[in-house]
């Protein structure tokens, strides 16, 4: 990044074009064929935002049977040793089809890589094979009542006690904690000396666990996706610590870079867009609607190229933090744009009880739309991240 006064006017965000490995094409064909079969036998109903809201453990296990969960986990730990770009292809096909992948999404996307990077041998053997079998789901316990955007303000405390840790605190908005087999916590273990980012640590807590209560929080769509997780002097074994004591902030930040630029940040409403475009053609599309289809295709193509460029860079061991933050900002706004465009051109009320077709997908997309620009860090926070990299903060 050299968007500074000095240096090259031509190089600002320089990122090589992303590209998929040669075997990606046949892999994509396999996934497409699998999804077509599933649809034919009624294995799932396409949903918007299915990666957050459509959990189907049986579907997850069918995917795992194909080797499409824990793909990047090495064989030694029960995974499949595939590249992150192969995972990218599988992920984007599942997302575009609106397949119910929520059960394993967090485990597959961030906990498997995280445990692989930071975990002890014991933790790796304990969690990774189960994740790859589609039998171990994870939730994230970062946010709290007084720690949202300002994540470093977490108050959950972990006190070292003989043989382990005693943890007390309240986590909020934990997606899927009611279905998860484990939750990863960010908690304060030590005083914030020198920096408020110091003294934080990560823990993995198996669920259910004595002293840990999971309570549902319903969302505006009337459904139960996320939860309040209360820890009341819960005693964890010492090997619940993930990574290094006191390095929680750095660990979480690294996790977020991976979390922000994936294909799910632009594809939450792709099932709606595809279904709408298909329906338009069946009913005889007018020129205005056609142009909007073209406009959304152009945007989808572009943001996907950005996401792919980031994925390629990550796979090459680089960390394109600015572009990752930009993908989430542009991608999540694109997701909302799809909802608003379809709604405007459809010119019909959306009923809460919509049972099928474009209307049902639109209802889900609409009712979920506030989440797009919040989860994974509010877009304003991402813009501040970008500004930091532009050298203006």
């Amino acid at each position: 990044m050299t968007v500074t006064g000095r240096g090259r006017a031509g190089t600002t965000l320089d990122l090589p074009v992303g590209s998929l490995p040669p075997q990606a094409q046949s892999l994509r064909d396999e996934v497409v064929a699998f999804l077509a079969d599933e649809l034919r036998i009624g294995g799932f109903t396409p949903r918007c935002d299915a990666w957050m809201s459509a959990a189907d453990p049986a579907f997850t296990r069918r995917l795992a049977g194909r080797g499409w969960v824990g793909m990047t986990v090495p064989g030694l730990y029960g995974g499949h040793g595939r590249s992150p770009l192969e995972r990218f292809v599988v992920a984007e096909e599942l997302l575009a089809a609106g397949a119910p992948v929520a059960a394993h999404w967090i485990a597959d996307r961030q906990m498997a890589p995280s445990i692989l990077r930071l975990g002890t041998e014991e933790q790796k053997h304990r969690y990774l094979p189960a994740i790859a079998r589609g039998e171990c789901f994870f939730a994230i316990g970062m946010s709290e009542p007084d720690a949202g955007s300002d994540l470093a303000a977490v108050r959950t405390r972990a006190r070292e006690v003989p043989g382990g840790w005693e943890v007390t605190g309240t986590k909020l908005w934990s997606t899927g904690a009611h279905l998860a087999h484990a939750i990863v916590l960010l908690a304060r273990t030590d005083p914030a000396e020198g920096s408020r980012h110091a003294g934080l640590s990560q823990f993995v807590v198996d669920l259910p666990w004595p002293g840990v209560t999971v309570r549902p929080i319903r969302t505006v769509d009337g459904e139960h996706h996320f939860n309040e997780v209360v820890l009341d002097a819960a005693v964890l074994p010492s090997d619940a610590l993930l990574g290094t004591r006191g390095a929680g902030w750095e660990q979480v930040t690294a996790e977020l870079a991976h979390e922000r630029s994936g294909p799910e940040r632009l594809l939450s409403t792709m099932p709606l867009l595809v279904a709408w475009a298909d329906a338009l053609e069946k009913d005889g599309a007018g020129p205005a609607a056609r142009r909007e289809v073209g406009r959304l295709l152009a945007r989808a193509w572009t943001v996907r190229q950005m996401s792919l460029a980031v994925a390629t860079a990550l796979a090459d061991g680089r960390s394109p933090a600015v572009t990752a933050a930009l993908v989430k900002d542009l991608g999540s706004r694109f997701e909302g744009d799809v909802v608003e465009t379809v709604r405007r051109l459809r010119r019909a009320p959306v009923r809460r009880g919509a049972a099928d077709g474009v209307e049902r997908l639109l209802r889900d997309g609409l009712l979920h739309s506030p989440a797009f620009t919040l989860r994974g860090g509010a877009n304003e926070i991402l813009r501040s991240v970008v500004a930091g990299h532009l050298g203006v903060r």
Partner: protein
Amino acid sequence: MTDHLDDLRSAAEAMFAGREPHDAVPDPELDTLLWKSLDETGFSLLGVPEEAGGSGGTLADAAAVLEIAAAHLARVPLGETAVLAGWMLAGSGLAVPDGPLAAAAGDLALRRDGESWVAHGWLPDVPWARHCGHAVLLVPATEPRLVLLPLRGTPGVAVHPDTNVAGEPRDTVELTGLTLPAAAVRPAGPGIDQDAWEIRGALLRTVQLAGAAQHVLSATVRHTREREQFGRSLSRFQVVQHQLAVLAGEVSAMQVAARAAVLAYETARATAAVAVGAAKATASASAHTVAAIGHQLHGALGFSEEHRLGAATTRLWAWREEFGNEDVWHERLGAAVATAGPGGLWRLATGRAAEVGP
């Protein structure tokens, strides 16, 4: 390959840095000094095969240099020469003449007269024609023809100067009974037709739009750090930082789109039209946001003709219209989705299936 592109970018950077116009006063003159360096280093015909008299290299090479040329607001018809004229000449078995070249597509009345041809016609918006010795003209028809037009000192040719909104030459070439030797008129080579011309032109302008947008981003970041109000740099205000982040997002989108479209054009011709169309639509649409934020954060200073910002933003305003603005490409992409059948939108978004016809 990336290392090679990096080297090329550094070399281009060295060549174009310092050649920017000082202000936003429309300047249709050719930067002859810059053209001389481009000519001497072979950059002027990058991507044109050596057999045809070019410098060899790929389209990605030419695009890397063009992005930087545009970021420095270079006043030379580099894209017209290397990417359009050079491509058509080399692809049709014609030798590439010296000097900057204009390129155009348009209807011409061509009549045989013994061994030679006689041409009549009116070609508007020919970039840089007044500074070029020759224009390469694609005459679209069922069997498209390529015409090498001499522009200087030839009876029957008049170049009427005109400019685009950025003040770049977009001249009208008038032919009134121009006599051409037989060798100057050829059937266009394989794959060179009106559709290909529009796609390649759109790709060229997409790359240039991405370059000019980077100029706006760099200039705006620099300006907001230097300019103080309320006792601090503008860049200390969060609302300014967030506008810069939005600007960076659009610029990054334009750059990634341009580069990905170049790659698609070189490696996957069958789906290149969708890639280029999507990229041009993105670049044309984002040009507004980029220019608007750039101007807003520069305040009145950026609106003054004495400031260079306007040279970049007027180019964005000009180039976004050329070879199809976003509305044109949205329409074509929408039609491509319609013909691609069920699920077609997603297949096209991932670089599979179907054609997009202009």
